[in-house]
């Protein structure tokens, strides 16, 4: 059974939230995850239940009906979700709570918060974040989707790709270019499902994260009113970048929760699997390698909570979080590789948990800022004191 990790930054409250999430995942997610993988999405009832338990309001101020907690809570929540072994479920939740919702919270007007937040917190309205395009992923400033002023609103044209939660979700926060002559002249818009001209062109078929729905979206003369503009016009690039550290943090968190489970599962398997007159775990090559994997996960965990703690102190840990995202996500894939390896032929079978986890993990060094982009963020800051 997964347990709450020993981490200096986790106080009793955060440890209790972590434990509660582990319990929920064990009872309400793990028994159903295989079916959700086949279905290609997480049932809305599950998300409503999570909303009812307050899981979607961790970062929402108490005055707006949430818990008012900070990045440490996001880190511990994401790590606990990662114990599910179904990363598609994890990311469905985290896109809603920690990747899309922060845009609404940070930039939303009082009227927008009043209109949307209650349903977002209850799980009635699931969010997605539409930034990535066919020709612009980590290079956010390169997006081509455009929005032009049209009467009392804006007309949006373009397309988005790889948008998590957009097939079955209810509202997409869309980045669109509003200043054609300015590379950074981008604005954010709240586009509700059902808006005329806003369509899911395709539900995408992925290697992993199969219980998460992922869409290609088309915007064909989509008109939204001025009150659907999120934040300040033309400032969307900067407002988007503000939220990226948190997105990277929770991707690492869910990956580490998964890596820990993969190690635990593999230790159990190798202790049971008879070989060479003993068990696989008795072989030094295997037990020592598992020991090294555990050491690396422990180190990454310490670094993740440190980054979260820095963010809670008001320090924007771009170098630290980018470096962690680059290193930890590659390391997590190494963990999965070895766990598959130590399962032998079984590790290559669709019925084994580590096989699925190894497919799920492959996206981590790509999504939410590719490793190469993350290392550039670190390199740009080499030599600085922080």
């Amino acid at each position, binding site marked *: 059974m997964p347990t709450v990790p020993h981490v200096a930054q986790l106080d009793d*409250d955060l440890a209790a*939230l972590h434990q*509660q999430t582990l319990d929920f995942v064990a009872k309400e997610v793990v028994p159903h995850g295989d079916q959700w993988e086949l279905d290609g999405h997480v049932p809305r009832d599950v998300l409503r239940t999570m909303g009812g338990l*307050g899981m979607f309001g961790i970062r929402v101020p108490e005055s707006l009906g949430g818990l008012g907690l900070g990045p440490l809570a996001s880190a511990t929540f994401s790590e606990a979700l990662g114990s599910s072994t179904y990363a598609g479920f994890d990311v469905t939740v985290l896109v809603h709570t920690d990747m899309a919702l922060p845009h609404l919270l940070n930039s939303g007007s009082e009227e927008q918060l009043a209109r949307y937040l209650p349903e977002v917190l209850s799980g009635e309205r699931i969010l997605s974040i539409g930034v990535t395009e066919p020709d612009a992923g980590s290079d956010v400033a390169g997006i081509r989707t455009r929005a032009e002023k049209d009467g009392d609103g804006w007309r949006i044209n373009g397309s988005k790709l790889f948008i998590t939660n957009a097939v079955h979700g209810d509202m997409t926060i869309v980045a669109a270019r509003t200043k054609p002559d300015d590379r950074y002249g981008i604005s954010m818009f709240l586009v509700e499902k059902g808006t005329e001209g806003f369509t899911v062109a395709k539900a995408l078929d992925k290697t992993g994260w199969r219980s998460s729905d992922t869409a290609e979206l088309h915007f064909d003369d989509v008109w939204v009113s001025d009150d659907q503009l999120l934040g300040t016009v033309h400032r969307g690039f900067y407002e988007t970048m503000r939220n990226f550290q948190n997105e990277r943090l929770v991707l690492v968190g869910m990956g580490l929760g998964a890596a820990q489970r993969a190690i635990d599962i593999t230790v159990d398997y190798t202790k049971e699997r008879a070989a060479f007159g003993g068990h696989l775990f008795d072989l030094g090559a295997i037990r020592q390698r598992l020991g090294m994997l555990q050491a690396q996960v422990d180190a990454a965990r310490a670094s993740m909570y440190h980054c979260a703690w820095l963010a809670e102190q008001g320090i924007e840990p771009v170098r630290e979080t980018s470096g962690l995202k680059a290193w930890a996500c590659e390391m997590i894939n190494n963990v999965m590789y070895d766990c598959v390896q130590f399962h032998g032929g079984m590790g290559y079978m669709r019925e084994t948990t580590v096989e699925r986890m190894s497919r799920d993990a492959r996206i981590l060094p790509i999504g939410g800022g590719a490793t190469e982009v993350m290392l550039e963020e670190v390199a740009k800051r080499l030599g600085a004191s922080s």
Partner: protein
Amino acid sequence: MKVVVCVKQIPDPADPGALDPESKTLKRDTKLILDESDSYGVEMALQLVDTAGEGSVHLVSMAPNNEVGGLRTALAMGAESATLVSDDALKGTDALGTAKVLAAAIARSEPDLVLAATESSDGYTGTVPEMVAELMGLPSVTFAKSIAIEGGTAKVQRQTEAGYDDVECPLPALVSVTAGVVEPRYPSFKGIMAAKSKPVDEVTCGDLGIDAGSVGWAGGGQEIVSIADAPAREAGEVIEDEGDAHERIVSFLEELKVL
């Protein structure tokens, strides 16, 4: 309506337990958690108060070292307050001594209804609720699968091997709740955060007017003479299927008298 629920805080069954050779009991110096078998009583109490539209749920527990971890879980589910009896004199207390302490603590709340699990998951004596009822002079109904309160009467469906009996008794009463008859709610995140500020009244034997000599090792009516680790699980038999595996499995089950 005021409902008191007896809850036990036990060592986490997920952690390998250890016996203390000195006290000859389970080591309890680790973090304690809410006994799962008590979560059904807490849930039942919360549902009864919800149905009544008024009232409160109060918890009573006895634990060493002022441990409140398990109580906080039940408070996070929705209970309003708790009384924790914690006293060095209670070490080694047997089932009857435990019942004396709980009865004294419960009496302070003057409840309409007392709920308890049928047995704890670590001690398994299955006798404490009935002894508490006897000491308090309350009607005792055991193995409840459902409870309804009508006026001053508790209507209980009492689980039996054949089905259930319909039983009625006047309030106040003590009812033990069968595990699994309700689905304990998940504490909400807000409930967890709020639990830390809910009142937990920590009292000692002296506060309850209990003579320390009547509980603990000194007051015990039983003595644990010796303890031993449970025998290690023996290796199972691996049956290679050479066309007759099904016959050997049937034969094995017949030996166990399960067929």
